[in-house]
């Protein structure tokens, strides 16, 4: 799985939670919660979706690493062994 695949998974999970967003408008370095108006339940669902699709376990202490697109891709790539 390439970082692009991971990015697609992330975007897909986000658009399921917030169907109205334009994926192209997501700024890679800014927090999803601020950009997309996610609350903690949305964020939990986001993490659950990533867990489902990628089969990775994400401990709660790592949640901050998923707050923005760049960091999330990097974190998940390391977890899935993508390169």
């Amino acid at each position, binding site marked *: 799985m390439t970082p692009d695949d991971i990015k697609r998974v992330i975007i897909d999970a986000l658009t399921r939670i917030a169907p109205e967003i334009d994926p192209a408008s997501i700024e890679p370095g800014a927090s999803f919660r601020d950009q997309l108006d996610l609350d903690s339940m949305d964020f939990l669902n986001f993490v*659950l979706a990533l867990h489902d699709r990628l089969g990775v376990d994400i401990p709660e202490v790592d949640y901050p690493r998923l707050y923005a697109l760049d960091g999330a891709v990097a974190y998940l790539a390391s977890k899935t062994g993508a390169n």
Partner: protein
Amino acid sequence: MPSLGADMEAGTLVEWLKHPGDGVTRGDIIAVVDTAKGAIEIEVFEDGTIESVHVKPGEKVPVGTVLALIRGTGPERPGHPPGHPSAAAALRTPPAAPMPNAPAVAPAAPAAPSPAQAAAREQPGRVRVSPLARKLAADLGVDLTHMTGTGAQAAITREDVERAAAALKTPAPQPPAPPPDRSTAMRATIAAAMARSKREIPHYYLSTTIDISVALAWLRKENEKRPITQRLLPAALLIKTVALALRDVPELNGYWIDGGFRKGAGIHIGSAISLRGGGLVAPALHDADTLDLTTLMRQLQDLVARARTGSLRSSELADPTITVTNLGEQGVESTFGIIYPPQVALVGFGKIMERPWIGSGKIEARPLLTATLSADHRASDGHRGGVFLTAIDRLLQTPERL
């Protein structure tokens, strides 16, 4: 047509999931109704067999309209011919749901000194409506609340209702206007409920700051042990805390109806859920005080998901006995909410923030939470509200017991 909240006046039947001849059991979902809050699944509150349905898909009817008759499973009432369902078994609003449009205050009768009008003044607040007019108003969907009667003893008559019905019809433009979209309807619904609340409910507001470090530490450890699918959010802890605190202060849990407090049949926490694109709903987590945290969290997740996809159930909308709002999610320190009538209290939680805190004589950085209470002063006093917020603080210091 059940009332799914104080602000609901009518609903449109979308589809019947059960049909004449089908057996039904209390709790079954028998129909889907469209309201300003989305498509709601209507549960049944009787065991029996559907005898007949009286509203067709696509029909919009006022709250209180009989949707279907259900033949009960009990013995026939004596003198009741076979084939005639018991009127008592008519599909009805769950008992806990207050009727929102209970007689509103009537305009004072004109001061002409006839004995009949003097009699009319003996019962202030009761709108006089002739039986015929009441039936016709129900058939035509005319709201009698603010109508002035021209009949005997200033009662609303058939002619008054017909005039009002005609007035409703006339403004319809030639090409029928497209129905207002859901968010417009919801905006109107919220507007009506909140305006009524501010008009009728004498709110008082209390606030307290809670050191939530112990609860968060416990939650962190707990979530480490839990698989990802069973992790808890702070919201689950807070809802459970509110539910348990209400056991100590039951006068915050229930409704103000007809000039008196009516205690909630259970502790059903309405959890304010904002919807993407605007608006909010606050459906109930039933008997939240009896749920363990895992179950409560699972139900909360399910409730939020269904609120946002528009598939809530009638009891979830009709039953809340108090509302909890968690605006802290959006970064505000505290929230002083407007009570959702006829409920008598609303609990608000602000953002959890690290702030200086003095403990054991030392200034430390601690995660703090501002908990607020908006309460109806008719139903409770500030002292009891204070007891309630203190109980929330106390309960959050022993999270393992929640």
